[in-house]
């Protein structure tokens, strides 16, 4: 029988704040361990910037997982393609990038990022139609197909651009740091934080304020019922897949600028981080993905500073700890 009669007052839905407080608690916990306030602030800013970039790359993947239960092991290809495409714009306009004018720098960076997103999004369309459509519902085949796609994409990038690492210097106006007392925060990290925050807010607005967003949220939870209401979820999925691919492309450009270099296998390490973020965030949860990305970046930065030898396994340990606490991730959206 039901726990409430129709006329009984409804218990107020509980706000689950514990995952939100987790990065805050972790950051505060690190103050005494790190000792120096300026080092702590620098590491925290680095964590937030890195977390935002990982979030941008992972946000599409978590929706793809949640909405269609598709395991896309080739997501990293969009990151690398995005970064390489940006070089097509940045290389010919190197003079504008080196100019000491923020507006001139942005006038080149903006179109480069937009072109990267467009190409990655279009590649997403091809991958979904050619590689994923024939293997819906077949996880093993999805892994094989998308891993194969990643290898083909990487080898194509080698064939087109060569095996060498391509330098991608930061624009002049984004070099250096903002100095606040004895704290230095890199300008580019501030920009990364702002872009990441803007992407997060935009995704949240679409998901919570539009009918399209309602459909995505409903589809993540029960795609069969969404279809029974008359909506063609495959088209919706294609749109989400392309958007996720485009965001991965944007993330690729940002990551390449962060590292100041591009190479075809740049996404290999990132893919592991992204999967950890998606899993600990909870499949299909954008909020969980956001917090997960910040946590992963914090563990990498704080861990790398305090116990460098643990850096290689720190994120795996984080995933184990989170899944022991919440086996379906920080915010469980789907029942998978």
């Amino acid at each position, binding site marked *: 029988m039901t*726990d409430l009669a129709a006329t009984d007052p409804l218990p107020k839905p509980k706000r689950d704040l514990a995952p939100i407080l987790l990065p805050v608690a972790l950051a505060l916990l690190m103050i005494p361990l790190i000792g120096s306030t300026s080092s702590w602030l620098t590491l925290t800013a680095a964590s937030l910037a890195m977390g935002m970039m990982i979030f941008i790359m992972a946000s599409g993947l978590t929706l793809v997982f949640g909405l269609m239960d598709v395991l896309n092991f080739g997501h990293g290809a969009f990151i690398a393609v995005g970064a390489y495409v940006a070089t097509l714009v940045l290389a010919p306009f190197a003079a504008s990038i080196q100019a000491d004018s923020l507006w001139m720098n942005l006038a080149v960076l903006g179109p480069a990022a937009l072109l990267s997103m467009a190409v990655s999004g279009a590649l997403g369309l091809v991958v979904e139609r050619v590689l994923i459509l024939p293997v819906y519902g077949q996880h093993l085949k999805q892994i094989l197909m998308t891993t194969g796609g990643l290898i083909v994409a990487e080898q194509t990038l080698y064939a087109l651009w060569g095996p060498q690492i391509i330098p991608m210097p930061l624009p002049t106006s984004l070099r250096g740091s903002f100095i606040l007392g004895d704290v230095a925060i890199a300008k580019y990290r501030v920009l990364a934080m702002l872009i990441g925050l803007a992407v997060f807010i935009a995704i949240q607005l679409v998901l919570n304020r539009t009918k399209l967003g309602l459909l995505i949220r409903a589809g993540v939870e029960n795609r069969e019922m969404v279809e029974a209401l008359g909506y063609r979820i495959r088209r919706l999925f294609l749109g989400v897949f392309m958007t996720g691919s485009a965001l991965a492309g944007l993330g690729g450009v940002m990551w390449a600028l962060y590292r100041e270099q591009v190479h075809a296998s740049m996404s290999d390490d990132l893919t592991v981080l992204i999967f950890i973020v998606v899993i600990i965030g909870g499949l299909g949860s954008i909020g969980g993905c956001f917090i997960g990305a910040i946590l992963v970046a914090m563990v990498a930065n704080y861990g790398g500073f305090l116990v460098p030898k643990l850096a290689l396994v720190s994120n795996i340990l984080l995933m184990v700890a989170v899944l022991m606490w919440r086996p379906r991730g920080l915010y469980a959206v789907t029942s998978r």
Partner: protein
Amino acid sequence: MTDLLKLSGVHTHIGRYHILQGIDLAVPQGQVTMLLGRNGAGKTTTLRTIMGLWQASKGEITLAGERIESLATPDIARRGVGYVPESMAVFSDLTVKENLVLAARDGPLDDTQLDWIFGFFPALRRFWLSRAGSLSGGQKQMLSIARAIIEPRKLLLIDEPTKGLAPAIVMALIECLKEIKRKGATILLVEQNFFAARELGDTVLVMDNGTIVHRGEMAALAADVPLQERLLGLSLEAHQ
């Protein structure tokens, strides 16, 4: 009375299991057709096959004269078929309002229709902005039915709406379904609650092992205790 929905020789396989084994049935326009049978007889599979959620491996399904067995689920829904699954399947992360906004596919919510629904299910008005996941089982069932009737539908497929609900809520649901019936809706209703079946049903189909083993008037089955015992293993009287 014309038949709105007809199934002829419909077979459905799920994996290697042969669930529906040649279903022939007709649902007359403007009537409530009860689909009864023991657990595992194939009732839910029949509804899901009509809805296109499981593909019929053989046979014909006709809705208002049009073949629909090879259509995708969204296309069947767009032809005016509303579906209330056994699991209710409300979107628990969405509010009551958002659930209904999604169900009103072709435009904004119709206030007159909403008021009509709130007349049966006042709880939905009260919890309009609450997350559906925090509703009780009965309230979720109300929302699930409201979602199916928020827009005019040619045919409603409803799967065990009274399952697990308190008697007071069952009565409210029966009243709601009676009102929907009075408005001329055509309903194919799977139900294990024989009291509800007798109250609502015009005609009845009884399933066993993936086939229809009895068809007739609901009133006649309700009056024939030996027939109930033979077909269903229990009499209606045992459920009153």
